């Protein structure tokens, strides 16, 4: 038995152990037992995935026998290298979320159902990239969807918003499933089998239909605009360790699906496929980051940032397809690697960010950035972890996000636009989109970190904040360590990821640096850090000497240009921080503002109080979904007339159905 096969067998076994650990122990030790077992399940996924990524071939075949006469192929689990990458991501994120959950889960999330659903969710996620035929893929996909839906509902008795979020999530996730089912059905009928190894048929109408259906289905799961609407609802309402797993790992399965389609199932598609993906990706990146930059709910901000990152990944995939199509394989390879780097990097920093947001919620009871502030002093570990992860999300050196974005940009500027009109137009536009996204991401995460952790507390909850428990801190720190490690050693990581998509010429150079000979570019973060250290030494020496001579003096009040009555309410909030941006992107965001000025009784010229309300709604949701939902509701109301509770009417329906069936059969 090869290591991968052993891993594939071990995962369901560990899952059963974890479920038992969730069901059997007393409530006091349940979280510890179930969390540890779930972490073991996650780690087994990491190990199996790594083996698959390094080229080990394993296969697990489950014969299916149903008592009906249907030609069912056996279910096959056989992860390839690409699947291995995503299995590592799912397992790693799952393991961290499980460890975090030990300290974090409370109430319904720590119940038997809560932990069982978590284990099922985790197992489903780890099996999706292992599937080697569409039936087992869809099966694992549905297991993942069911597990996450139950988890999302955990808090539904305490907060009514949870129910609305769960309904949206369930609706979108089923939409995704239906689209995928249809897509795979079309594909299977054209290929003549459900296995991913079957070559797709040559009928272009069939493959194009399958492509569009699959991309829409996977895009819904991945949170691409305009199918993103469930993300900003579900992520904030789910327990934080679940949001971390959903955002950092589950949406990646959507990206995996897209890669599966364009790399493995339908590798030679027409050009407009790439254009479709490019448009979806670019729109998601811009829309996601724009919404993230103006929202002040911390978890909602992170959810929108996920849409942005997924958008960038899909953009990278689309660019790779375009360049592959234009015959520039070497540069296309860089774009493929960039897409995978983005996946891995996002998994690392978004897990840490969601766990950090969870700690803040846990320690202050606040999710609204406008009511936070000064948390750095009460929560030093959370603050440090959030800072590192935010550096990753803002793509600053030296972090995983920087490496990924740098690679993407290198692929973009080295594509030769002179050979081809479409490429010549697409590449500059993409550079601009990526750059604007990066710029706004910078603002978003400076805002998120600065408003939450710096300055003075803006509410009592923030003033009385307390640090997270040991298991939570350990999991967060591990996530942040991942962000830095990926940022410091991009060479080996990129080489391994390159093998997963068959990219050649991605090498390691210098001190674990990343070498892209095709682009004549290299990035060695360790060397960059060493150079920074070299110029930092003189500055440090001067600073130390000056500090010895003249120590810092503590004063009571900040100066504030003479504003002595400093109160925390005078500080900038997240909303005011984003105000200039809202004004700049007024047309795209369409905020509704309401200013009421109350005058003093003595004179109209004396202003007593000013009230300012600003409401930002998701434009896509309002324009595209509200009408559909309203129509469905109307139809539902009409359909209710069919049901009036009278038993005779129901009997009449059955009778009518019987007659129709009899007639249909005999005709």
């Amino acid at each position, binding site marked *: 038995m090869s290591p991968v096969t052993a891993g594939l067998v071990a995962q369901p076994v560990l899952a059963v152990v974890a479920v038992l650990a969730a069901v059997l122990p007393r409530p006091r030790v349940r979280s510890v037992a179930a969390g540890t077992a779930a972490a073991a399940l996650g780690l087994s996924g990491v190990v199996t995935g790594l083996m698959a990524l390094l080229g080990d071939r394993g296969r697990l075949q489950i014969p299916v026998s149903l008592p009906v006469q249907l030609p069912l192929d056996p279910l096959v689990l056989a992860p390839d290298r690409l699947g291995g990458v995503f299995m590592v991501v799912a397992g790693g994120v799952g393991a961290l979320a499980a460890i975090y959950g030990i300290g974090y889960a409370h109430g319904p999330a720590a119940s038997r159902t809560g932990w069982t659903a978590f284990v099922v969710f985790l197992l489903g996620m780890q099996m999706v990239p292992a599937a080697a035929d569409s039936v087992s893929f869809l099966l694992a996909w549905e297991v993942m969807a069911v597990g996450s839906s139950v988890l999302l509902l955990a808090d539904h008795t305490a907060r009514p918003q949870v129910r609305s979020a769960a309904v949206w999530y369930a609706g979108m996730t089923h939409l995704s499933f239906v689209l995928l089912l249809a897509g795979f059905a079309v594909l299977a009928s054209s290929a003549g089998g459900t296995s991913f190894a079957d070559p797709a048929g040559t009928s272009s109408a069939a493959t194009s239909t399958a492509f569009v259906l699959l991309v829409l289905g996977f895009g819904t799961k991945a949170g691409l605009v305009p199918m993103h609407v469930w993300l900003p609802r579900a992520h904030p309402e789910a327990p934080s360790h679940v949001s971390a797993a959903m955002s950092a790992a589950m949406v990646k399965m959507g990206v995996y699906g897209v890669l599966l389609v364009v790399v493995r199932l339908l590798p030679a598609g027409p050009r407009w496929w790439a254009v479709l993906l490019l448009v979806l990706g670019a729109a998601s990146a811009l829309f996601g980051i724009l919404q993230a930059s103006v929202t002040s709910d911390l978890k909602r901000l992170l959810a929108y940032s996920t849409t942005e990152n997924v958008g960038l990944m899909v953009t990278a995939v689309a660019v790779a397809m375009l360049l592959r199509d234009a015959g520039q394989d070497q540069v296309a390879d860089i774009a493929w690697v960039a897409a995978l780097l983005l996946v891995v990097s996002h998994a690392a920093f978004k897990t840490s960010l969601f766990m950090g947001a969870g700690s803040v919620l846990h320690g202050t009871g606040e999710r609204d950035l406008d009511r936070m502030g000064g948390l750095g002093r009460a929560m030093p570990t959370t603050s440090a972890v959030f800072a590192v992860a935010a550096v990753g999300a803002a793509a600053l050196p030296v972090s995983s996000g920087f490496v990924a974005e740098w690679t993407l940009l290198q692929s973009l500027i080295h594509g030769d636009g002179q050979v081809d009109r479409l490429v010549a137009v697409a590449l500059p536009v993409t550079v601009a989109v990526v750059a604007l996204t990066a710029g706004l991401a910078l603002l978003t995460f400076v805002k998120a970190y600065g408003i939450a952790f710096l300055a003075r507390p803006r509410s009592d909850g923030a003033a009385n904040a307390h640090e997270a428990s040991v298991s939570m801190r350990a999991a967060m720190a591990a996530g942040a360590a991942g962000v830095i490690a990926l940022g410091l050693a991009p060479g080996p990581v990129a080489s391994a990821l390159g093998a997963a998509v068959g990219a050649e010429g991605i090498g390691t150079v210098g001190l674990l640096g990343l070498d892209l000979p095709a682009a004549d570019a290299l990035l060695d973060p360790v060397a960059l850090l060493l150079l920074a250290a070299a110029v930092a030494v003189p500055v440090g020496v001067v600073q130390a000497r*000056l500090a010895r001579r003249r120590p810092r003096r503590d004063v009571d009040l900040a100066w504030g240009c003479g504003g002595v009555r400093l109160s925390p309410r005078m500080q900038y909030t997240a909303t005011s921080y984003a105000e200039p941006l809202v004004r700049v992107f007024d047309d795209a965001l369409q905020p509704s503002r309401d200013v009421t000025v109350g005058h003093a009784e003595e004179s109209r010229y004396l202003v007593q109080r000013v009230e300012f309300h600003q409401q930002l709604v998701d434009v896509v949701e309002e324009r595209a979904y509200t009408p559909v939902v309203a129509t469905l509701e109307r139809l539902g109301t009409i359909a209710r007339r069919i049901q009036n509770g009278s038993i005779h009417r129901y009997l009449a329906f059955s009778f009518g159905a019987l007659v129709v069936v009899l007639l249909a059969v005999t005709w």
Partner: protein
Amino acid sequence: MVTVELGFIVAAQVAVAVLLTPVLVGVMRQVRARMEGRVGAGVAQPWRDVRKLLRKEPMRAAGSGPLLSATPLVLVVSSLLVCALVPLVGTPTMRLVPDDLFVVVSVLLVGTVALALLGLESGTAFGGMGSSRHMTIAGLVEPTVLVAVYALSIPVGTSALSAIVAARIDDPASVVSPVSLLAIVALVLVVLAETGRLPVDNPATHLELTMVHEAMVLESAGRDLGWLELGSWLRLTALLGLVVNLLLPWGVATEATAFAVLVGTAAVTAKVLLAGALVAAAEVFLAKVRLFRVPELLAGSFVLAFLAVTASYLVA
């Protein structure tokens, strides 16, 4: 051996930048003062200011954290790193740390973010205001920077700055090609926005409500303020030096010999001071634009950069 020589150029660049920076700011202020009919404080005043500030004790208001003293150092180190990377004196670079423009831009952004966090840390209304404006501008500048870089990199096939400058020394005609001119005009606007010069931000303003850069450093005093001033001026030197070396690549050392470095130092000093004087002279005639018209300016410069790329792909 080669590494030693290259270290020599990098060290020379950092030293030149540190020594040149206060003079540059002094020259710019002096030019401006003279053109406005004032006597001016003399070219050496910024140097005296920094020395004085560095020797004074910094203050810390109750409730502010360690970022207050850390961010000025981060800013200075990031600015020095940019000076080390950008080809100011010479083009030979270290093999493992090439002066890739994307790397340079993100190192610059580290300084930008450090300043923004400092503004928020102070916990005053003005600090947050400056920080918010600063980040809005930085975020909107990014597309222009990267697209302009893209335009410059197309003819050379690499985003390494030294390669771009070296190619320009070899083929001076490429400097005046429309593509390069458009990209450089875009870059100049970006540099003005990034370093807080007119018409985006007025470095000499005393009106808190119009401040961007100054609002963020209001709460810093003594040593902290000294580092902050030096750090932001170094950014100006590095970026101005980069632009003049792209526009007038002559004199830049292409090999790591003592003579070439000497010539390179003299050339970059002369060019940067001249450019600084020109910028200062232009600023006399400019008014600060309203904050909400800055995006128009940036959109304009973005379009110039974008046209440069389009033109070089679709025409050349």
